[in-house]
């Protein structure tokens, strides 16, 4: 079996956000797992995520970043709960002024991919505000 990171990273590189899906119990699964954490069957495939969700919380890293991330500062991290009722940690696109002042807890957000080179460098899902 291929590493479960591969289909996920490959989709991110094509500008797509995918989720695991359990065919046995029709459950979306995120983060990807070796077996379905609900019914424990192995019948897991991949589905396209809606990309829409709400921002549960976010942080803006300015100092004390892990090694290799200093050049990225400041950068924002957010926990997003998707419409499929699963959640993940991602990066947030800055506002026009380079800050994140327009973001708030429970704000609607949507997946907005980074360029393939960036995803190759850092396999992360990026989100932006979704002014519904």
């Amino acid at each position, binding site marked *: 079996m291929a590493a479960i990171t591969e289909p996920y990273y490959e989709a991110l590189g094509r500008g797509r956000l995918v989720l695991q899906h359990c065919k046995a119990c029709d459950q979306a699964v995120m*983060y990807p797992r070796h077996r379905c954490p609900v019914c424990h069957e192995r019948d897991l495939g991949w589905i396209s995520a809606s990309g829409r969700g709400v921002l549960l*919380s976010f942080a803006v890293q300015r100092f*004390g*970043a892990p090694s290799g991330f200093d050049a990225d500062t400041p950068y924002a*991290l957010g926990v997003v709960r998707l419409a499929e009722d699963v959640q993940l*940690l991602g990066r947030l696109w800055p506002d026009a002024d380079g800050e994140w002042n327009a973001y708030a807890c429970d704000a609607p957000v949507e997946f907005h991919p980074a360029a393939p080179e960036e995803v190759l460098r*850092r396999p992360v899902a990026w989100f932006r505000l979704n002014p519904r």
Partner: protein
Amino acid sequence: MTAPAPMAEAAFVGIAELPSGRYPDRSFMGSLVDVAVEAVRDAGLSMTDIDTLLLIPCLHSAADQADLVFSRVVEELGLAGRAKSSVMLHSGGSTSDNTVRTAASLIAAGHARNVLILQAEKWGSAPVGEMIDMLTANGIPREWEKASGLSFNAVGALIARRYMAVSGATAEEMASVCVALREWARLNPNAMYRDRALTVAQVLDSRLVSDPLRAFECPMMADGAVALVLTGAERARASHETWVRIAGSGGCVSHYSIGQEPDLAVLGWPTASAQAYEQAGWGPGDADIAEVYDSYAAVLAIALEGLGLAPVGDAARMFAAGDFSPGGRLPVNTNGGLLSAGHTGVGGGTALLAEAVRQLLGRAGSARQIEGAARAVCGGSGGTYMDSQVLLLERVSR
């Protein structure tokens, strides 16, 4: 048929602690041996009475941690050929709670007579950058979150932001949590910041590290060492006027990675505390003190609310009103907590636990001893606040 013998209830009878802070000349193994000897003497036992060693991990060095795993302490303490078991347990910041439950169970089941719990950490002397990187492998999934650049301060910031949004707590109120802990630390000769006052203005003037957290709201890594001795209640009764029993415990592992926590402002505390209070037969209103994991202000506020020690959404406001400060309604983290006594890694929770035992034994010293403290609520949490562990302790007098 005769009735089964009553289980031997576990009793805390000895404690020892080294001051927390930066002590580059203090060796890791030397610190462990020093607190071990002091705690066993404090318990009124001989070293050879110890049959079980439960070791709390250090995080500053994989080699030093390997020494814990592979029984080096047994040789250092002269217990080779005598010790029945020496084992390291690890669940990050909740390790001491899990270790105490394990010790009590071993004693109750007759697998151990006298248990020595040992902890030492050298975070304060270790390179900060290396420790930040090491922590990104402690509770942050390398496949799904590490590439985002998540740091532990950002984990604290994600929790703080959510707590502030749902509670309406202001930046001043969050800063006041740090100030209250500093007031306690000023009364504790073992605290890293015993000599440095802190004001809300100073906190709010410090630079943003990971919004909404500012520099003075992030814990400072420290060296430290703690030892605890547990024995059976019968033995405690034979030789001690006062000891401490475990009235109840509870726990809830709510997630592994922060990205999977459904309620960042609640975590596992309500589930864990309900279990513990039910077992103890008493409630939050009966607590005389609370010693609860506090690597960030919001982490402590959320825990106090889940433990029923503050109404939901009010904990930070109550800190600002002085309710949890020296002289306040309920003394909280009377050693200064991780935020002001020093973050000794896994040991931060161990120091809080030792402080609870010390207070209940009436040995916290005149400056910060809570008169008549008989019941303590202790809470710990590991990794990305993956679990909420509760120990309810009470004083027993012969």
